[in-house]
């Protein structure tokens, strides 16, 4: 494959999965419609054809069953990568994820390892019906025993999915569904950064803006607009939601003195709450303004014709930047 091709995020994930499957025969893919159909977002396109029905498994329609049997397969030495079709359908598997997947390593005093990846297409903005636009990362980030990451671009998608599969711990892997078809350069030969490190995607001076997944692009656009108004935003892609890369965040906030956290999930107990609380604790004397949060409202995700209003956008990010600067 030619290096530095331009690739969609979905295709990058597909390439990453393929590469992981080629490297390790224990890697399996499981889920609803992941086989012939290649998944409703085509992330597993062609994999069943090339790796067979034993390694790319169309399962019965039961998320708890999928995660529960994936745990059993992991106990036997496999490395299952589970696809949850849409964010809103992970809840039937919540017990298996929270009570079993997250806790079994601890329960066994370290004897048992469950290198299972749960892939979740996340977030709104695609005009879908109910349950197809949820941002539920806070549930899993609050759950000790899990690691939670979110990719925001093709290159990260390609590497992070492989790193997640290679992780000996269970990983909940978020894919920004409305960015699946966005293209960017991907060099498969590049050396990836560690899975749990954040990245400054745009350096700046006045306000730090932290986001992840689908909101990274929104924040970058906001930074472009802000620049025209003479405001320099430092945009950080958190990438890892649990654990958080606090050193990088704090280093930035210590320079800028201001932080805005942006995500689609409702603000109340969303990831921004933890970022705000922790950064404030560490950087209390550096902060010129309270950490401000931009996110979804405290509402069930609204019908599609309202999602543009519901979701944080460039203007709401800039509004928060303004409010931060006003302190």
């Amino acid at each position, binding site marked *: 494959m030619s290096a530095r091709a331009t690739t969609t995020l979905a295709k990058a994930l597909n390439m990453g999965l393929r590469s992981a499957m080629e490297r390790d025969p224990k890697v399996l893919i499981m889920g*609803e*419609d992941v*086989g*012939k*159909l*290649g998944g*409703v977002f085509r992330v597993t396109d062609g994999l069943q054809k090339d790796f067979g029905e034993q390694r790319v498994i*169309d*399962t*019965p*329609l*039961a998320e*708890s*069953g999928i995660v529960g049997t994936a745990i059993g397969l992991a106990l036997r030495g496999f490395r299952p990568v589970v696809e949850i079709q849409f964010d*809103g*359908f992970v*809840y*039937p598997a919540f017990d298996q994820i929270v009570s079993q997947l997250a806790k079994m390593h601890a329960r066994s005093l370290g004897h048992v390892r469950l290198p299972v990846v749960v892939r979740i297409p996340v977030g709104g903005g695609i*005009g*879908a*019906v*109910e*349950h197809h636009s949820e941002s539920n990362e806070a549930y899993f980030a609050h759950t000790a025993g899990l690691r939670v990451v979110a990719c925001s671009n093709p290159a990260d998608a390609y590497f992070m999915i492989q790193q997640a599969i290679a992780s000996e711990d269970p990983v909940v892997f978020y894919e920004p569904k409305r960015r699946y078809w966005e293209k960017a350069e991907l060099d498969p030969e590049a050396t990836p950064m560690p899975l749990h490190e954040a990245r400054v995607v745009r350096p700046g001076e006045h306000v730090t803006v932290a986001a992840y997944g689908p909101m990274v692009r929104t924040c970058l*656009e*906001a930074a472009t*607009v802000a620049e025209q*108004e003479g405001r320099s935003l430092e945009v950080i892609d958190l990438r890892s939601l649990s654990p958080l890369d606090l050193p990088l965040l704090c280093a930035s906030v210590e320079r800028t003195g201001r932080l805005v956290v942006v995500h689609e999930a409702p603000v*109340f107990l969303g990831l921004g709450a933890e970022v705000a609380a922790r950064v404030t604790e560490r950087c209390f004397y550096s902060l010129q303004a309270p950490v401000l949060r931009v996110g979804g*409202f*405290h*509402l*069930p995700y*609204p*019908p*599609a*014709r*309202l*999602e*543009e*209003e*519901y979701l944080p*956008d*460039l*203007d*709401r990010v*800039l*509004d928060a930047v303004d409010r931060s600067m006003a302190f």
Partner: protein
Amino acid sequence: MTMASEIEGSQPAHHAAGHPFGPPAGPAGDPPLVQLLTPEGERVEHPDFPLEVTAEELRGLYRDLVLVRRVDTEATALQRQGELGIWASLLGQEAAQIGSGRALAPDDYAFPTYREHGVAWCRGVDPLNLLALFRGVHHGGWDPDEHNFHLYTIVIGDQALHATGYGMGLTMEGAESAVIAYFGDGATSQGDVNEAFIFASVFNAPVVFFCQNNQWAISEPLERQSKIPLYQRARGFGFPGIRVDGNDVLAVLAVTRAALERARAGEGPTFVEAFTYRMGAHTTSDDPTRYRLASELETWKLKDPIERVKAHLARTGQADTAFFAAVEAEADELAARLRHDCLALPDPAPLSMFDHPYVEPHPLVAEEREQFGAYLSRFAEDPASSSSTEGR
């Protein structure tokens, strides 16, 4: 043929010597299928399900079938034209839905999935509501109690438990009505659906579990959900299951009526498997050519649920061309009205999303509403202050 064999399947009663657990379980061949109207439009009798239908009733069913198919076609067209976000077509499942929907008494209560447009029709829900839902105007705008028709449930299987609980409530009240829970073949794999079987059985709830086995759960064929015919699932839970020709509106009507009657009489739940076929894509977002052969569809076209009723009506002289033309015209009119009304549907006002998260006042919601309102007014006053490239 006795009903017991239909209910319990035709498992061999004896096993090969030397196999203490009998022969390996496998597909039990072609299980019996209750049918009252052949694909060719011939009326046949079934000893257990005698059915009297007047010519008028039959014409009424035909009209229902044609109208809901027309609604469906129009909705698909609207989606193609960008007016709906997505549409889940009922194409091929009209008889299963009209037959069961028309079996319901006014006081019975139905719990649909996202595909029960035909049942919605029978319950008097304006199809415009369904278009509005798939357009993204709301998640379910009708008053369920006005129609005894619950909201569409999208999370596979969840409604089976709601139906069961509702049925338990009917029993407690001593009400003489029944509940019908709709779900698909794929849904039978969900824990919630199986828990519903357990609760309904243990509490003897008046529930008809109506499974439209349309052979596919998106791209997954039935073999991914079960090795045996689905109606046999019920026997593991202690209540009867039966397979009916889901493309035969009369058979579905008769069997559903009997099952509802059973429920109302305090005899507990019944599982009805309506054997049918999803003639279209899973939804307008789906591409079935990736996973199934066109020839399968061709076979099922010969069993079309509407054609057979038309053939029967025509052959028996219960309807003439004028009738068929009138239904066609009514369908066109309905479609035109729906298209017009759909295009005229106003987008909900931004602040309306804060209306119903809670019944009672909630300070956080109130605060967010106020702040967002103020934020929106700033833009309204000074649109230039929006830096957004995406127009609001």
